[in-house]
């Protein structure tokens, strides 16, 4: 569960104030908003990667406002995957477990389990170079899921994928969510993605976050985003 209370973030001249929202346990929340409105900044603050001026962040009921990123137990899937270029797919999936000092057999079992869930078993011994966009995102997802996080944050994970791969990854994310029961916070510009995935859709407007329903999302004249913003987002 994610609870954000009156968050205040300052980044030079850019400022976000009074940001509050929550995502319930097992819920798939999608956060939308114009390019540059601060969605990624909020995600980074939740993960502990961005200092905050004031406000509180509670994760699964515990105050995580000043916690180090490592202690928050959040799986992060960035926009470009941000895979570690010197490791194989197997090593990426095992990374968090190795850091946690898991035994070799337990790591192997978990990596095989994840690889099967994500359909990357045939890629396990490959380096990350030459992986397709979809394969990279599956690997990044597996790396984030490896240590059984209760919260998963995804920052536009499908922005660089073609429609077919995007559809495949959408249904995979749904499967993963029902298999893990984790709480997902997913940033996207894509209306269809939000429609397909979101149990709850949040929109960031003028520094505030409000919930919108599926009808409002699908309304043709809804003041969402121009094509150029989608492309640059």
């Amino acid at each position, binding site marked *: 569960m994610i609870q954000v209370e009156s968050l205040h973030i300052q980044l030079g001249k850019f400022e976000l104030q009074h940001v509050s929202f929550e995502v319930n346990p097992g819920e798939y929340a999608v956060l939308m908003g114009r390019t540059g409105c601060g969605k990624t900044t909020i995600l980074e603050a939740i993960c502990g990667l961005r200092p905050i001026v004031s406000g509180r962040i509670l994760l699964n009921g515990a105050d995580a406002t000043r916690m180090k*990123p490592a202690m*928050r137990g959040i799986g992060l899937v960035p926009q470009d995957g*941000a895979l570690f270029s*010197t490791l194989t797919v197997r090593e990426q999936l095992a990374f*968090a477990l190795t850091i946690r000092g898991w035994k070799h057999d337990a790591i192997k079992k978990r990596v095989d389990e994840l690889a099967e869930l994500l359909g990357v078993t045939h890629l396990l011994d490959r380096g990350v*170079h030459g992986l397709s966009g979809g394969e990279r995102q599956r690997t990044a997802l597996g*790396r*984030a899921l*490896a*240590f059984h996080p209760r919260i998963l944050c995804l920052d536009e994970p499908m922005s660089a994928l073609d429609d077919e791969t995007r559809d495949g990854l959408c249904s995979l994310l749904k499967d993963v969510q029902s298999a893990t029961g984790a709480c997902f916070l997913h940033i996207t510009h894509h209306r269809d993605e939000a429609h397909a995935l979101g149990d709850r859709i949040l929109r960031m407007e003028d520094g505030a976050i409000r919930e919108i329903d599926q009808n409002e999302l699908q309304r043709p004249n809804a003041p969402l985003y121009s094509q150029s913003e989608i492309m640059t987002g």
Partner: protein
Amino acid sequence: MNHAEASGAETARTSDAHHSRLALAHYADGPFWACLAIIACAYLALIGCMLISDLFYTTPGDLLDALKSEDIQYSIKLSLITVTISAILSVWTAVPIGYLMSRISFRGKNFIDAALDIPIVLPPLVIGLSLLILFQAAPLKWFQTHFFQVTYAVPSVVLAQYTVACAFAVRTMRNTFDSIHPRREQVALTLGCSRSQAFFKVVLPEARRGIFTAFTLAWARAMGEFGPILIFAGSTRQKTEVLPTTVFLELSIGDIEAALAVSLIMVFAAVLLLLAIRNYGVSQAQQNVI
């Protein structure tokens, strides 16, 4: 001819004129590229002719004779040892400084950044003189009395080489860390790493190409260092004599063959290093594109 036809003809004439000007502009691309190519070729010819004339000035027999000299053999050995130590020390210094300068913002960063370039812009003789004066200071005199001699001894050769070579290594490592997106470290932090684990497990392996380049650049730079060594370490045969010192000493006694033999060793070393950097750099760059 009615008004519309006249207007059409006028438009066609204007369009033709524009096309001719365009064609002329494209025709003018030839001389532009030719000028660039001539300048590039002239400079390459200067480098090539310089090296070829070195090769033709001497014979393999003269070279071998020169290399048999004990003084020159000592200088080759001392150069290889000191240069390698300097390059290793430079990388050890450059990696933390480069990472710090790349990732941390603080007041006065621009000043520190400029200060790190001082050994690059200072005249070499001034660096040697400054080191010499520094080691006249009481604490360092005490150090030399109680531990080991630095000035006019082998450690001064290493220190003189390190002072300059390190600045180049720092610049290289700073650029390397700048080119590695911090997002990967951030992901590592969320996966359970501490800052140091993220650095050693993620950043450092990704920076291996930069580390290799920094090492080779520092090595090459240290190999060519002369001014600071001459002032700070002196030019005593069989003691503080490194390859550039040998060239200077041999020239000063008029033995051009020996000076050239030593110069050619440095040329071969430089060419080998360049090839290594290029080859390793290219294969890594191809990987980093993805």
